[in-house]
């Protein structure tokens, strides 16, 4: 069936902010869907609240709305744009749920909008756990024995028949949110309560656990003519019991005979037909009893998913792109397979001749109090994918791509709870526990157990990891052990080749042999052992392809076939983590697209399968490789690029910059030395002094004693942090010498090579971010952003406003001048981000302090680009390639008439028990943008986009630290005027009442019941304003924030945040919606 002609326009709903379980894979799928539908001539309307997405670039859709993904807001968009259809399967669970809301609320019917891709009933059947079970029964597929519950009582009754361990899965959530495995009654009650609360339908399912069974996924695509193909099978190395997003997974499935595989294939197809997924991609998850092949179905997702992004990258089959076309009527046989240049149709099943391994990346170090056991609720924040010709090569490449300081199966830290002088037996017991209780680093303990002589059988018995995988790991460790004690010189070419074929990194070999990485590399080159590049072609070489999607391996024939064109290589950002996510990928994509337009051949290097940068369409040539020195140098060797861009991928490529330069790589843009100048406190301080600018008093300490004495010189409070970090890792505010001493002892390992930076903390300062571009001659200010939270909250966690909402022209101009001076002083070529702190001085003016300068792409670049309509990353990429700002015609970026607010999104709900207070260490996973005619309107939308909806009436609870007592009065007055009742703890109550406002006093927790938490639990409080300082006070109010978070009561921990909330109270979800071109006006000209 050809393209439908009865619809002319399609609304695509995006996934919103990056959260655990929903990351940039939906930008990849959404961007593909936009492109696919536009090229078929459809008018594409897009809504997504996440500005750091490629899909929200002006050229991607005909009408783009960076607005909250809330059905009431989307209704306004539908009202204005009148799309003929809505495609909800590209934006994860967020889009699916929003579409179901639109349907339920009658919006689709009212405006005559057809839901395409998946019908409401199909979504409901797949997501409603009870209906799904019954549907599976109908087609003869087994599901785990289960009970459905809507209340705690029902759950307790259900537990009687299920027993422990019991798996709890809420309906209609993603990433297994709110779910878990209960081993006892206490855990059961806690997980059930959370699950009931998080489920949109207050429904949970209790399941018998099939812990230890093998887990598989099938990525399936179906068209309107009922043609169905399996794009990819995925096998989890980690058996059942761990969320697939947190599992190490491998494609294709490796331990099934054809007979079993076909059973699973047929079942997948039956599931799609039964659920009624008319078109598009779906993911079906199975579990298999390794003892007898018994198969049960776990769940299915009637939409593209993280796994489909992985499957697309693993096979070269663009699932989202094809799914979008199927949704508008095409059938599989009518569509070409892009990777073979259309020589083959999309209606085939990819065959792959390599092994793909995905390893999740966790960030538990950011949440030390979080439970880091892996269960059915996803906890990882990113992932890395690696391609190798064998499993060994593939997994070792994946591990070194994680960037967690390992180059392979490095020796893990001591098992938990073990004294240094533990006996061999104690060690063994502790190790066994690490293998049984799955945490983020279990794989390394598995390797260590094998290293310590555990038999493969015992490892299998304890972990239930399939013997096939255990043996592969055992062989890796066996080779490693055999290498120990050998000298580098004694390794001959044959042996070196074997080791490299099995995926050993040069760095890993160096650490096993006891030499350094460069020595291994030199020896390897002497022996003539170098990687070749093979292509991902979706057909195992059966057809010739021109697409240059490549991976390295140690084989005989190289297929890279480099051209002799002028090439620019862009180094990507690797796996997502807190502090380095989609924003950097956005920049890398823009660099590739811009330079491609300018006639360069662009080479992308990255290993994050979720991204747009690893779409083989984004650059001319894609190297899906770990971002390590070894792997990058090997590509440079083959390609000989004219320039290498290291400043767009975040800290990942920056860390390589020096070594790359030393190895002769042509790094373009700001030199590594200038980057170092900006990051090296002492060198930077000299520059600041030269330029006559100010910094908060600061020192660098290399020992604890030194730190204490230097701190005395500059005075408390202090911001302390290790040098060279991104995302404020291990950054804290110390109020006293005691706190500093504790920090120096416990939080960081300080040394000569990694000193600790001490900065005087500026109380009550306003923080401002400025993004700029410098070409060596001219500097253009891209955007000035005023933070809403005071200085001291990590800029990545802080909300901010562009343009500033309370700064005068003069100080903004002054900031611009300082940026210009520093950009030139540093010799920046490309992007530069500066953070300032402004402190009001006695004369009513501002004292400007430079907090830090980062001569590289910053997290705010996409936000600024979306707010102003000027694509900074593109402009700067051209600058780096040698085209000046003047040549590009960029003299200035106009300050927009609209206000845009960026708000951060946090993963606290996923980590029960973690204090959601903000500080200098970054904790947010993503961000949203809200735009309005006023700051209040923009802040309202940004908050709604982050799923925080402010109440319009009710009771506001106020409890603030002493220094905020004066400021809280104005907030109280505004809340009261807006009709709120006020409730406050004693000190705050006195301050508020003294101002003549009606306010009820309430006990703090330690003052006895009924106290504030009781009121929160009784749903008597609707807004929480709670500011604190000092460790003790923070801990005291922890329960208040915990309760507010758990009950989804809007809360703020800063006075500035409280003021912003007041400003937002006059806005609502039925306000106007703005298209990007409304915001950009003439500025845009479709350039971004």
């Amino acid at each position, binding site marked *: 069936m050809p393209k439908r002609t009865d619809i002319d326009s399609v609304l695509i709903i995006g996934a919103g902010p990056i959260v655990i379980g929903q990351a940039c894979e939906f930008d990849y799928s959404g961007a593909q869907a936009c492109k696919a539908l536009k090229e078929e001539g459809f008018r594409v309307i897009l809504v997504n609240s996440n500005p750091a997405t490629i899909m929200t670039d002006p050229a991607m859709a005909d009408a783009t709305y960076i607005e909250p993904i809330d059905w009431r807001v989307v209704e306004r968009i539908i009202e204005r744009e009148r799309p003929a259809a809505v495609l909800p399967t590209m934006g994860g669970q967020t889009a699916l749920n929003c579409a179901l809301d639109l349907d339920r609320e009658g919006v689709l019917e009212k405006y005559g909008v057809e839901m395409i891709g998946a019908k409401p009933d199909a979504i409901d059947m797949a997501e409603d756990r009870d209906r799904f079970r019954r549907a599976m029964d109908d087609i003869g597929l087994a599901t*785990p024995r289960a009970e459905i519950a809507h209340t705690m009582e029902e759950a307790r009754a259900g537990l009687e028949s299920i027993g422990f361990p019991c798996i709890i899965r809420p309906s209609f959530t993603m990433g297994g949110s709110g779910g878990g495995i209960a081993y006892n009654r206490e855990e059961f009650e806690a997980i059930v309560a959370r699950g009931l609360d998080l489920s949109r339908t207050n429904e949970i399912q209790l399941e018998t*656990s099939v*812990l*230890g069974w093998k887990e598989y996924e099938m990525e399936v695509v179906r068209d309107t*003519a*009922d043609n169905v193909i399996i794009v990819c099978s995925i096998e989890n190395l980690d058996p059942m019991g761990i969320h697939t997003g947190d599992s190490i997974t491998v494609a294709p499935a490796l*331990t099934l*005979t*054809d*007979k*079993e*595989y*076909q*059973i699973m*294939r047929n079942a997948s197809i039956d599931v799609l037909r039964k659920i009624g997924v008319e078109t598009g991609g779906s993911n079906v998850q199975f579990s298999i009893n*390794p*003892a*007898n092949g018994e*198969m049960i179905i776990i769940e299915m997702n009637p939409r593209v998913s993280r796994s489909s992004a992985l499957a697309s990258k693993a096979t070269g089959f663009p699932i989202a792109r094809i799914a979008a076309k199927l949704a508008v009527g095409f*059938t*599989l*046989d009518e569509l070409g397979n892009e990777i073979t240049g259309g020589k083959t*149709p999309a*209606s*085939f*099943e990819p*065959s*792959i*001749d390599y*092994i793909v391994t995905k390893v999740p990346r966790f960030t538990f170090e950011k949440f030390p109090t979080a439970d880091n056991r892996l269960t059915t609720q996803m906890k990882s924040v990113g992932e890395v994918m690696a391609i190798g010709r*064998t499993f060994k090569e593939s997994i070792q490449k994946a591990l070194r791509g994680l960037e967690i300081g390992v180059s392979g199966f490095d020796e893990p830290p001591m098992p938990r709870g073990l004294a240094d002088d533990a006996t061999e037996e104690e060690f063994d017991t502790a190790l066994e526990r690490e293998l049984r209780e799955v945490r983020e680093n279990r794989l390394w303990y598995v390797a260590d157990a094998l290293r310590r*002589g555990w*038999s*493969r*059988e015992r490892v*299998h018995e304890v972990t239930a990891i*399939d*013997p*096939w995988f255990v*043996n592969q790991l*055992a*062989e890796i460790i*066996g*080779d490693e052990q*055999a*290498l120990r004690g050998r000298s580098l010189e004694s390794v001959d*070419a044959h*042996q*070196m080749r074997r*080791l490299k074929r099995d995926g050993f990194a040069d760095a890993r070999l160096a650490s096993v042999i006891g030499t350094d990485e460069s020595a291994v590399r030199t020896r390897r080159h002497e022996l003539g052992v170098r990687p070749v590049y*093979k292509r991902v072609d979706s*057909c*195992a*070489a*059966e057809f*010739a392809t021109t697409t240059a999607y490549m991976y390295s391996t140690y*084989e*005989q*024939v190289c*297929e890279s076939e480099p051209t002799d064109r002028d090439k620019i290589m862009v180094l990507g950002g690797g796996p997502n983590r807190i502090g380095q996510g989609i924003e950097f990928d956005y920049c890398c994509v823009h660099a590739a697209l811009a330079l491609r337009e300018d006639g360069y051949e662009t080479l992308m290097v990255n290993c994050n399968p979720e991204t747009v940068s690893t779409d083989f369409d984004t650059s001319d040539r894609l190297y899906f490789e770990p971002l390590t020195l070894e792997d990058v140098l090997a590509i440079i060797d083959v390609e000989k690029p004219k320039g290498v861009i290291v400043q767009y991928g975040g800290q990942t490529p920056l860390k390589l910059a020096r070594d790359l330069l030393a190895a002769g790589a042509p790094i373009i843009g700001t030199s590594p030395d200038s980057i170092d100048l900006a990051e090296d406190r002492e060198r930077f301080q000299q520059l600041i002094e030269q330029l006559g600018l100010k910094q908060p008093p600061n020192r660098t300490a290399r020992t604890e004693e030194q730190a204490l004495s230097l701190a005395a010189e500059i005075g408390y409070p202090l911001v302390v942090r290790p040098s060279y970090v991104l995302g404020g890792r291990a950054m804290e505010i110390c109020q006293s010498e005691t706190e500093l001493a504790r920090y120096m002892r416990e939080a960081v390992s300080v040394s000569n090579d990694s000193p600790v930076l001490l900065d005087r903390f500026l109380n009550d300062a306003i923080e401002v971010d400025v993004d700029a571009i410098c070409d060596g001659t001219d500097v253009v200010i891209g955007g000035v952003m005023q933070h809403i939270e005071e200085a001291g909250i990590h800029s990545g966690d802080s909300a901010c406003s562009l343009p500033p909402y309370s700064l005068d022209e003069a100080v903004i101009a002054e900031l611009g001048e300082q940026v210009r001076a520093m950009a030139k002083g540093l010799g920046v070529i490309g992007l530069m981000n500066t953070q300032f702190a402004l402190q009001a001085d006695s004369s009513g003016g501002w004292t400007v302090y430079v907090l830090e300068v980062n001569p590289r792409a910053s997290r705010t670049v996409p936000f600024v680009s979306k707010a102003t309509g000027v694509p900074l990353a593109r402009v700067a990429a051209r600058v780096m390639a040698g085209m000046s700002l003047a040549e590009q015609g960029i003299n200035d970026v106009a300050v927009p008439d609209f206000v845009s607010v960026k708000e951060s999104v946090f993963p606290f709900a996923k980590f029960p028990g973690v204090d959601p207070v903000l500080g200098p260490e970054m904790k947010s996973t993503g961000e949203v943008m809200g735009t309005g005619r006023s700051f209040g309107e923009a802040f309202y939308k940004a908050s709604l986009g982050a799923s925080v909806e402010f109440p319009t009436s009710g009771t506001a609870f106020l409890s603030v630290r002493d220094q905020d007592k004066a400021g809280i009065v104005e907030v109280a007055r505004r809340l009261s005027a807006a009709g709120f009742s006020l409730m406050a703890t004693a000190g705050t109550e006195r301050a508020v009442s003294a101002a003549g406002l009606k306010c009820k006093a309430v006990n703090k927790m330690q003052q006895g019941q009924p106290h504030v938490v009781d009121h929160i639990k009784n749903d008597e409080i609707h807004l929480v304003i709670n500011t604190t300082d000092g460790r003790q006070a923070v801990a005291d109010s922890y329960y208040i924030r915990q309760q507010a978070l758990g009950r989804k009561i809007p809360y703020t921990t800063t006075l500035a945040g409280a003021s912003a909330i007041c400003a937002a109270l006059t806005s609502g979800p039925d306000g106007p919606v703005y298209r990007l071109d409304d915001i950009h006006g003439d500025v845009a000209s479709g350039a971004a």
Partner: protein
Amino acid sequence: MDNAGAGHVPFCSSAPVSDRGEPREFAPEPACLRYECKDVRLDGRYSSRPLQFQIRALSRPALLVLADGTSFDGVALGIDGMAVGEVVFNTAMTGYQEILSDPSYARQIVTLTAPHIGNTGTTDVDLEADVVHATGLIVRDLPSVHSNFRATDSLEGFLAARGVVAIADIDTRALTRHLRDHGAQAGCLMAGPGCDVTTALAAAKEFPGLAGMDLAREVSCSAPYPWTAGSWTLGDDQAPPAPVTSAADAPHVVAMDFGVKKNILRLLVDRGCRVTVVPATTNADAIRALQPDGLFLSNGPGDPEPCVYAIRTIASLLEDRLPTFGICLGHQLLALASSAATIKMKFGHHGANHPVQECATGRVMITSQNHGFAVDADTLTESLAITHVSLFDGSLQGIRRVDVPAFGFQGHPEASPGPHDVQGLFDQFAELIAAHRSAA
């Protein structure tokens, strides 16, 4: 040429390349051991099953030389010796055992593009014929441990026991690309001590090629026999089902064996047929004497053109309007018996992911394919209609006689290995038979 693979000993070993398996140095276990492993069952009870970890080392050299002089060094699996045949590749990711035992691979050395082969071991249940028909096997890696509850032996043990020459540790992707660009060609596999390029090249060059080669006669059974087994289902490995006893009035299908795969026969039994397998050379009258309700023409190796005896038989039986279904070689023979011609393809179709479109409905089905010859679409007579085409290259995939109840399919609807999408053709055959019987 890279010589690294030639002595695939553990890199830590300085021992010279030897012709017997040496245990890896790091293996603490005895060469083979069994242990009990508990598995949680759905109902919460425990069951035990033995698992097996086998340790072996690959240390014997092997060599592949193509007739055009291209050569690859690797390590030997299976037995020492020499094998000569046409080198082809198959892109199926599962089902290596079914492929090896498929009689259609006679005189072919098959390269499997999936990098790990042997992961799930072997079991006699998965054999498509009683012997291994492929002349040799080429893989990238054979893992030292297999893992699957169905396995009764390792692939290496299986190859050795059945006398198959095989090579591992070569750049199979490079080989596949070479075959794709230069076409399937003769090759020689040598395994064990004394591998030598000159001898192998001479042997490869001497191979006459498959064109004009009548292999069906060689792999066919020597006497008629009844087939009574139905399809495999989960659980059959532990307790094989009893043979199916056909009802007295069950339709009788005579299957001409040009190298028939067992799964074809099983699928016929599943559909209630009483099946008699007869040798390829059985003449029409002998088949008529069996009083068939339907005629099945099996798959098989080699060039269909020299099978004039079979073509004659088929043409004669078609005149009886006997319902007829041909698969692969059987399909080509049906075409030849209907006055069309066949051609040799450049490198053929070998995989389990080939999309085929049914012309009447537009439906796309993913099929298993394994053929180096094809029916020449330009030579179809008026009595033949095209029913299926390949979406990969537009080649002809299915034909139907417009005058008599006969049809053929180029791919493998019986799968094994591969997707089951086209199994409906067996139902179609059963319906033709039923219609024929009710009309009679």
